């Protein structure tokens, strides 16, 4: 079951959902509108093993994304839940511009809590502003016993590029 906006407010007040800062006006009928943080990381080279990203601070008058590039960013808010699973996506107003906010990895694990990394791809050149409302997160009821998330990304508060393939090597 997906939580309605009213239920998200209730659960946030009880501490079962963390959204910080939280603003009631950003509640939708069944999700919460999150904002873009102030930092981007843009891909610039691949050394055959690992992708490298350069950090960019978004200026006041915005930053123009070029098509066919991958940018990492983060949500302005710390988002998480000890009780619900999450799905974090772009808002339809940004999808209508051809802006991907995540590359097919929308699922947020129960008990993770952080500023989410966004994987941004623009299909058309677009100007993004720091702090703008850019996507939405929904909360889903679990079925079964919750085991705490022990992943490497679930507590990071900045745009974090992939730990792969280093992660993979360690597992062999």
């Amino acid at each position, binding site marked *: *079951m*997906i*939580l*309605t*906006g*009213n*239920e*998200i407010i*209730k659960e946030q007040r009880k501490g079962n959902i963390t959204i910080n800062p939280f603003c009631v006006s950003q509640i*939708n*009928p*069944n*999700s919460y509108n999150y904002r873009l943080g102030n930092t981007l990381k843009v891909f610039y080279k691949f050394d055959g093993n690992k992708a490298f990203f350069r950090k960019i601070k978004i200026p006041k008058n*915005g930053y*123009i994304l070029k*098509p*066919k590039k991958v940018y990492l960013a983060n949500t302005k808010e710390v988002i998480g839940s000890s009780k619900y699973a999450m*799905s974090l*996506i*772009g*808002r*339809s*107003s*940004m*999808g*209508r*511009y*051809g*802006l*991907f*906010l*995540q590359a097919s990895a*929308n699922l947020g694990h129960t008990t993770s809590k952080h500023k989410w990394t966004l994987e941004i791809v623009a*299909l*058309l*050149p*677009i*100007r*993004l*502003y720091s702090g*703008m*409302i850019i*996507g*939405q997160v*929904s909360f889903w*009821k679990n079925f079964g016993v919750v085991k705490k998330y022990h992943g490497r990304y679930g507590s990071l508060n900045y745009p974090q590029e992939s730990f792969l393939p280093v992660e993979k090597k360690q597992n062999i």
Partner: protein
Amino acid sequence: MILTGKKIIQEVQKNRIEISPFNKKMITTNSYDLLLGNTIIRYKSKILDPKRRPLFEEMTIPKKGLILKAGDFVLGHSSEYLGSDFYVPIIHGKSGTARMGLFVHVTADLIDIGSHGRITFQLHATIPVRLYPGMPIAQVSFWVPKGDIVLYKGKYQHSKGPMSSMTYKDFNK
């Protein structure tokens, strides 16, 4: 919880789900197939700026189809008018569409409860593809909400065709 196809039929009959026109043949095990309407929008602005109203042109998809080139991005729409005040719709591509490298939305699959209208498809081709008006292109599933419902009253309510982004309205508040 996701509704089964049979449950979707029942809820359409009880007017708790709106799908118009409704055709039982388009029901699948867990969803309803949506057809592509005949209008598309292509942006003309050199750089999209969420603070400004974007420039775009509208086109009719010819009967013989319209070819999208690899990398193209246009807005299309469902020929069905749909929505629900009781369930949360989620839009998906049909697997047959995805196998042609065609995206039907760009990370925005979630529809607000209480939103009624024709769905705007965010069509992105990764390889060349020919689109025909009336082709089955997407599907909608319906999910059970938990909590008190406040219905959608947003800026895209009652869309009749593809709607370009209206983010400039957020900044002018």
